[in-house]
């Protein structure tokens, strides 16, 4: 831990990994992160859905919500943070905080429970955040075709959908490349919001 200051001038960027509970978000993050995924907590008051409010007025229920994240140092003085969204439906408002400033999002789906991806697709569509759908094949089977998944999720042809094994680094890398390319397409047409 020598202080060198040679790392100064880094720019942070962020990609969100969303999807239902247990779909493999932390596995996806861990497959490419240079650190073991870390967990941090934010405090929320459920009555107002304020994130990180540290006071209680005695009438609100305060809980902590956990998010897992990883880090990847890129060349060009960039550091990319990958955030897994909290899986439970009741923490969806936390997604706003995560999506703010994000390059885009990966919606990870498990074809045995496609409906678990609906909330994430709805959210990023409404928000205008660039997103791609990644079908996690970590159970070794491709139970549905990409077109079946596209139909089930009701996403348009402009949204990329791909298979990936969330445990495999190169698969995760390909999904991230697809997402950033998609974000670039949208940025050049002025359609993306972050």
């Amino acid at each position, binding site marked *: *831990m020598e*202080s060198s200051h040679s*790392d*100064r001038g*880094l*720019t*942070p*960027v*962020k990609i969100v990994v969303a999807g239902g509970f247990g779909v493999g978000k932390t596995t996806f993050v861990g497959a*490419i992160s240079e650190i073991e995924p*870390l*967990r*941090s*907590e*934010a*405090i929320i008051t459920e009555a107002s859905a304020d*994130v*990180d*409010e*540290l*006071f*209680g007025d005695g009438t609100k229920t*305060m*809980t*902590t*919500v*956990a*998010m897992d*994240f990883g*880090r*990847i140092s*890129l*060349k*060009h003085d*960039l*550091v*990319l*943070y990958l*955030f897994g969204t*909290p899986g*439970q439906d009741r923490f969806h408002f936390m997604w706003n*905080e*995560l999506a*703010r*400033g994000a*390059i885009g999002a990966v919606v990870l789906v498990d074809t045995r429970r496609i409906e678990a991806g609906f909330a994430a697709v709805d959210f990023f569509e409404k928000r205008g955040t660039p997103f791609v759908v990644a079908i996690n094949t970590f159970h070794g089977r491709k139970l549905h075709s990409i077109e079946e998944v596209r139909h089930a999720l009701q996403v348009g042809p402009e949204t990329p959908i791909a298979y990936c094994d969330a445990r495999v680094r190169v698969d995760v*890398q390909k999904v*991230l*490349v697809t997402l*950033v*390319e998609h*974000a*670039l397409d949208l*940025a*050049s047409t*002025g359609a*993306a*919001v*972050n």
Partner: protein
Amino acid sequence: MTQPLVGGRIVRPYTMTGGRTMTQSPPIALEALVAATPEGMRRRRQFRWEAAEIISRSRRETAVVELAALLAVPVGVVRVLADDLRAEGAVTITEPPSALVDETGGEVYTDLLHKVLDGIKSL
């Protein structure tokens, strides 16, 4: 994943922040990078534990969310303390760029995305 706050910790978060919450809107980003200044390193021992730890841990630029995980405190605590340390000149905070504040017609943001793409491809 969920636990009641009261009774869940020995030190309550608002004790660590002197009862303050983050008022900046929007709040400091989760991925904003905190970097200790030479002055911060010099004066580190003048700060209480959590703040001193933030300075130590940000000798290399470190994200707010990472500091929260490393110190095992909620993100909001790091936000308040890092903001205080910035006011004291002990750290700098680099917020992420956003397409929404790109006043060049998107050129700067598009350049950034190209760099991210190159970076991911060459991992």
